């Protein structure tokens, strides 16, 4: 893993992986959504609204997966001071926030015809909303640290952001267990480790959609890591150039 901490080695890998993940993700997720919308059977109880499953569930998994990525990258940053871990954590925040927002919006839309309400303040929905606010706070903190010039890997601002990323991870198991701990309109987990209560007619397109959206998530994280890295490199070059010009000016005067 330490081998990939080298930005040049990372860029060599990311250059061909970014388009590959994005295109494969688009094809798989697109295919699963077309199948879900036009060919998957309707559910006996939920009717056609069950088709929302193919967007809502992968978005929920990736919303939580995004913060798990932030937490793991933050831990790696704090323990091993990997420069790329700082960038990876920041890169995962935007797709994580987008998928959390999609999960909340599609869940609310699904709730209206099935529960008779757009929203309830129960454990699952509220903890998912808290996750979205945590993403906003993380992004604001990371941007503020970067603008103040203290956001580079290993600096104080970067460490504060990493600690926030680690502390915020407490919300992920709360989301996962919320339907067990508290009464909720939301159904309990249908898929657990090695077990599924979902009929294969719904399960396989769901798994393919989840794989496709995960590849898209990976492609977006790599694209954002490349953008952040390129910004750092451009700023460093311009700063060095300005310092050199200043030094030359002092010598000539």
């Amino acid at each position, binding site marked *: 893993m330490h081998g990939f901490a080298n930005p040049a080695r990372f860029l060599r890998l990311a250059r061909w992986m*970014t388009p590959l993940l*994005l295109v494969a*993700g*688009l094809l798989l*997720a697109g295919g699963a*959504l077309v199948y879900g*919308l036009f060919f998957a059977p309707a559910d006996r109880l*939920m*009717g*056609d*609204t069950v*088709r*929302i499953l193919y*967007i*809502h569930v992968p*978005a929920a998994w990736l919303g939580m997966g995004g913060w798990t990525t932030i937490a793991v990258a933050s831990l790696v940053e704090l323990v091993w001071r990997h420069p790329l871990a700082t960038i990876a954590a920041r890169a995962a925040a*935007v*797709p994580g926030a*987008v998928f959390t*927002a*999609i999960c909340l*919006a*599609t869940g609310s*839309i*699904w709730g*209206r*015809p*099935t*529960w*008779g309400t757009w929203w309830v303040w129960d454990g699952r929905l509220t903890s998912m909303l808290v996750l979205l606010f945590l993403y906003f706070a993380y992004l604001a903190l990371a941007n503020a640290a970067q603008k103040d010039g203290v956001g580079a890997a290993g600096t104080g601002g970067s460490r504060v952001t990493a600690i926030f990323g680690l502390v915020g991870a407490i919300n992920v198991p709360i989301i996962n267990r919320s339907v067990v701990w508290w009464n909720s309109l939301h159904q309990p987990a249908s898929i657990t480790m090695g077990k599924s209560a979902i009929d294969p007619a719904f399960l396989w397109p769901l798994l393919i959609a989840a794989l496709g*959206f995960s590849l*898209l998530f990976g*492609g*977006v994280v790599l*694209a*954002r890591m*490349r*953008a*952040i890295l*390129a*910004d750092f*490199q*451009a700023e460093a*070059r*311009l700063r*060095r*150039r300005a310092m050199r010009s200043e030094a030359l000016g002092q010598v000539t005067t």
Partner: protein
Amino acid sequence: MSEGLSHWPFVIAAYVIGVVGTLGMAGWSWIAMRRAEARRDAARGERTKGQE
């Protein structure tokens, strides 16, 4: 199902939000990456010119 609502407007609204959100994020990330790398390459080019 409550109130006998038609399901399809809800299904379509959810798909539009999911697809537009995902494609928008992927497209925006790709464009931002290309712009940032072009800016870095331009900075590299300026340095090379300055050294000549």
